[in-house]
């Protein structure tokens, strides 16, 4: 199924004693669990970087609407190009993710958890079902978990069906409810009005695993790693032109140059940090740091060697967004198609500088006016490639 493990460094996850996080959480009040997560400085590992403690606190405080329950949703709709860390976590550390979900349920008072697994990962389903079944036997799921009366929680798996936009939390909820995965207007936020109109926390696979580690090891330990604003370790999915592609664990705040050295990608011409929705960083900026305060990422690192054609890269990303835009709002639906058309003109050497400027203006409109994160971030790659590689993409004479 997974012939070669993608792990390239040891993970902290390997050394955490099973269920020690849950045990610690069971000894705390709900407010103390959330305080611990807040104090650790943990921020969403899916890319957006929202403080996890704040999210849990809002959901804990939110009122349940008549006859309903709160929900914990694990976002395993890992679709960002160049990202595959969640695949490795789910295959090798599923227990830790489910433990994190159970801790989240205890903290906010949820009865049901849902793992939203992307359609492309359907082959993992038997493994994950088996882990859930074992946890039910171990009394780690079900009624009166670990012997505590009134602590009832179970987890279901919901399969996605191939739509990148469903990684956006409100689109994911729409999809869970059986609808088209079109993002909702926010507010209201899912912590208040989420799945089935009830308070819902939606967290990334990696975030939940870290939450379990923090309860096991302490907020202080987590906070002591990384930078002031970006605490802790982060898993990086590294692919492209390097000697050792795979999943790495590094503290946040690592510079692009250091990272390249560790993965065997020295001499790279550019690095795409954050996947298709991220930024393309040229060699002159390799001293920048990967952290929420500098270059933020969900963990995707794609390395481009000296021989790569950056316009080809921009074209691939724009084709991706044209395909994956849900089509609901105009800036994203039409904007991405226009940018792709512009890439075509550049390719044929028929694009004036003035038109490039207009496309950059359009990109700004998309960043400002799109409804969800997909549209807001879709021009990023195009803009950074145009900015840093003008010499390469303008005035082409070669027609492929």
């Amino acid at each position, binding site marked *: 199924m997974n012939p070669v493990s*993608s792990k390239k460094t040891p993970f902290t996850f390997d050394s955490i004693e099973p269920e020690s996080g849950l045990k610690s959480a069971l000894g705390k009040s709900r407010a103390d669990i959330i305080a611990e997560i807040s104090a650790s400085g943990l921020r969403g590992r899916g890319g957006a970087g929202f403080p996890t403690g704040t999210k849990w606190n809002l959901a804990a405080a939110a009122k349940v609407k008549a006859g309903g329950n709160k929900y914990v949703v694990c976002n395993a709709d890992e679709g960002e190009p160049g990202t595959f860390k969640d695949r490795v976590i789910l295959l090798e550390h599923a227990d830790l993710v489910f433990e994190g979900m159970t801790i989240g349920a205890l903290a906010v008072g949820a009865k049901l958890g849902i793992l939203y697994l992307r359609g492309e990962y359907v082959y993992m389903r038997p493994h994950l079902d088996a882990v859930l079944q074992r946890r039910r036997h171990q009394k780690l799921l079900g009624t009166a978990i670990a012997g505590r009366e009134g602590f009832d929680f179970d987890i279901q798996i919901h399969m996605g069906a191939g739509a990148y936009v469903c990684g956006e939390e409100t689109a994911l909820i729409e999809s869970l409810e059986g609808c088209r995965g079109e993002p909702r207007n926010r507010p209201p936020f899912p912590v208040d009005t989420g799945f089935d109109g009830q308070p819902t926390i939606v967290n990334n696979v990696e975030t939940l695993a870290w939450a379990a580690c923090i309860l096991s090891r302490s907020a202080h330990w987590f906070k002591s790693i990384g930078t002031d604003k970006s605490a802790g370790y982060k898993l990086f999915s590294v692919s*492209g032109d390097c000697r050792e592609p795979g999943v790495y664990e590094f503290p946040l705040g690592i510079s692009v140059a250091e990272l390249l050295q560790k993965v065997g990608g020295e001499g790279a011409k550019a690095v795409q940090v954050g996947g298709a929705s991220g930024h393309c960083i040229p060699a002159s900026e390799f001293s920048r740091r990967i952290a929420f305060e500098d270059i933020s990422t969900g963990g995707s690192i794609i390395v481009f060697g000296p021989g790569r054609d950056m316009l080809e*890269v921009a074209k691939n990303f724009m084709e991706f967004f044209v395909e994956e835009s849900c089509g609901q709002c105009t800036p994203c639906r039409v904007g991405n198609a226009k940018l792709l058309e512009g890439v075509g003109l550049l390719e044929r050497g028929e694009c004036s500088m003035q038109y490039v400027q207009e496309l950059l203006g359009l990109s700004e409109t998309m960043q400002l006016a799109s409804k969800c994160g997909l549209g807001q971030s879709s021009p990023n790659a195009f803009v950074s490639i145009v900015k840093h590689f003008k010499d390469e993409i303008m005035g082409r004479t070669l027609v492929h």
Partner: protein
Amino acid sequence: MPVLQELQRNHATISDFAMQVIADELGIHPAEVYGVTSFYAFLRQESRGRFVFRLCQTVSCDLAGKSRVACQLENDLGIGFGETTADGRFSLEWASCLGMCDQGPALLVNDRIFTRVTPERVHEIIDECKRTFGAHARQAAHA
């Protein structure tokens, strides 16, 4: 959605008739069912082959040599992307990132993932499908 996914698995297609039945059962308008079916890449109204080949078209697989694998798939199956063979056995499609970026090019055949696919291996994969298809056909005949 689980209803549609199950239907897709068993019948390889979601017909207008099926959508109408689902709408009646759920008490919603068939247009809503159609809306959902047409939204997701893994749900389709058109008939698909017994084996759906989805080649990852994302940049990492591109760097790893996706285009030659794509070309060989087209040659060996005798169809282009978005098409199904006349005997209804194979469909060929593009997929957005399959999450195998460190082991590309990646190919998803129904529920099975193949990594580091080379143009040479394409033929083996197709052959293997043909063998299991035979077994499947016999089983169905006995049932």
